[in-house]
């Protein structure tokens, strides 16, 4: 590989199934350190399935995922827990724990993995919430705030342990364009400030063109990757290819 940056994530020959049906086969790619990496593709091609297999929510049928050179798929439970500490996942709907307040939601990972005193954890939680523009909402329950706020709170929770890698599942789904761009700006900020590696599953072209360093595109036809590279390079590829159509098709009406 010509890129001098080391790899945060390496996915090798991954095959994933969704309810006993194989949706992806032989997926191989790597994500560099401090890169904003997009996994794109149409609906139902297995983007979220790939993400779930990468972070260990589902078990791959075959293949391997390693983080910073250590295999995650083959790791024993203790090693796995160690590795889980180093990444955060922001879910599509936020997936906040409904019985806990926003502050408690963010405090839980800190309570699990650090020996910080309670008041300090509460201060960190409040700081994280203010980072995503939710200051003052510490004692609200997830059911009392809007979908967009839940998503931001989910991001705050994903960032709680200062992870080296953060995964996002459809961060802009269900958000208006302005909120979605603000979220993009936040993601960019996190990367620029902490050098966090970011992996985003999305089909929001504005996000992709706005902040992606590199991307892979998945497709049903091959059950795997059909394009890989920088968005600008891919968009300038041969007209008519799926990736070019995906990245450049903006209007249906002609004229």
């Amino acid at each position, binding site marked *: 590989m010509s890129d001098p940056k080391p790899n945060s994530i390496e996915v090798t020959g991954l095959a994933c199934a969704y309810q006993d049906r194989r949706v992806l086969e032989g997926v191989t790619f790597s994500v560099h350190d401090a890169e904003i990496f997009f996994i794109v593709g149409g609906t139902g091609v297995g983007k979220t399935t790939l993400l779930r297999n990468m972070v260990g929510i589902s078990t791959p049928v075959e293949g391997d995922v390693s983080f910073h050179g250590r295999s995650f798929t083959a790791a024993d439970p203790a090693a796995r827990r160690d590795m889980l*500490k180093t990444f955060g996942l922001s*879910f599509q*709907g936020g*997936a906040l724990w409904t019985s806990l307040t926003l502050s408690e939601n963010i405090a839980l990972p800190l309570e*699990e993995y650090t020996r910080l005193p309670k008041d300090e954890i509460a201060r960190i939680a409040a700081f994280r919430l203010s980072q995503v523009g939710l200051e003052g909402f510490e004692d609200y329950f997830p059911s009392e705030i809007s979908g967009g706020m839940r998503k931001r709170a989910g991001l705050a929770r994903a960032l709680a342990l200062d992870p080296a890698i953060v995964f996002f599942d459809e961060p802009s789904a269900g958000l208006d364009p302005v909120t979605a761009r603000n979220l993009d700006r936040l993601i960019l900020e996190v990367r620029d400030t902490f050098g966090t590696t970011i992996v985003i599953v999305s089909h929001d072209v504005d996000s992709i063109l706005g902040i992606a360093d590199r991307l892979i595109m998945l497709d049903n036809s091959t059950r795997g990757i059909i394009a890989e590279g920088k968005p600008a390079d891919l968009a300038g590829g041969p007209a008519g290819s799926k990736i070019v159509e995906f990245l450049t098709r903006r209007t249906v009406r002609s004229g």
Partner: protein
Amino acid sequence: MSASQETPAARALARVDGPVLEVSLDGSWRLGGATPRWRSVVGSEKPAGVRLRADGVTHWDTSLVVFVGEAKSWCTKAGVECDIAPLPEKMRLLGSEFARSLEAGTREDHAQSFLHEVGLATRHAWLQAGDFLGFIGECWLGAKRLVVGQSGFRWNDCLAEMQKCGAMALPIVSLISFLVGVTLAYSGAIVLRRFGGDIWVADLIGVSMTREMGAMMAGIVLAGRTGAAYAAEIGSMKANEEIDALTVLGISPVRFLVLPRVLAVGLMMPLLAMYANCMGILGGMAVAYAALDIPPPAYWIEMLTIVDFSDVTVGVIKSVVYGLIVGLSGCRRGLQAENNAAGVGKAATSAVVTAILFIIIADAIFAVIFNVVGL
């Protein structure tokens, strides 16, 4: 064309033009109205070609598209030429699209044979049994770590659950156990009166409440009240990806969600069962006083001649097991729930059924064991 105007009926007029069957469509074609079908128009004729015109059509919708599509597909099958050129462009396009969708082989057949289904169901049952054992093992390990003090236990959650499944269940447990005492007293009296042994109602109620009915009634109430609630709570957390969020943080859902709940219900059940015993005895006492003229002190003294500590112990042992059954089946069904709203409902139902089934099975096993050890 506005629908409020007089709408001429949809018609398809067939005219033989040499070897070609020309069908002229006119009128208003609406899905809700009566529209001609291609089959009845063509009948048993075997023309060498078909031509469709739509000059007189005042309004059309999918009903006309279906007609054109069926005509096209019939022509393809019969091997005759279908000329739809005289139709407006949109009609032609949609009609051709409809004809294409009729073509065989486009629909994926994923129905399974009976044997295949049986095989899948057997495999599913086998996997489920393995999963269940894994779940019990995980709970056991979690409980062990808790005793050794290795893992942070969420006592606050546990206390909150205790209040929900214990204190808040008192009214319903009171009512049901009291009524069970009343019913037992009346039905016992029917037999005992024949032998002039009305007073033995006290013995009957005392023994059956402490050994059997107290724990059983509390168990069944908690299965419906608490077990279903656990399944629904955990099931909706699963649908909301909250369980995945725990997994990805490396936090075991068993430790975080299951243990506090199972422990809470396991600790509360014996207390509820003993309370149910008291209420049942009170119910029997009320009937004995009101219907059989047995004064409460006499009832109490008679009861103490037969009920002893071992009977209460039997009830308490059973109630702990019933509590664990209710807690475990509720949480298990919740964790197994499908990731959607219907899955949550199913999980709650099956939690109750599973808990009651296992309570009855456990009761039968206890009957045998206590008989053997002489308790």
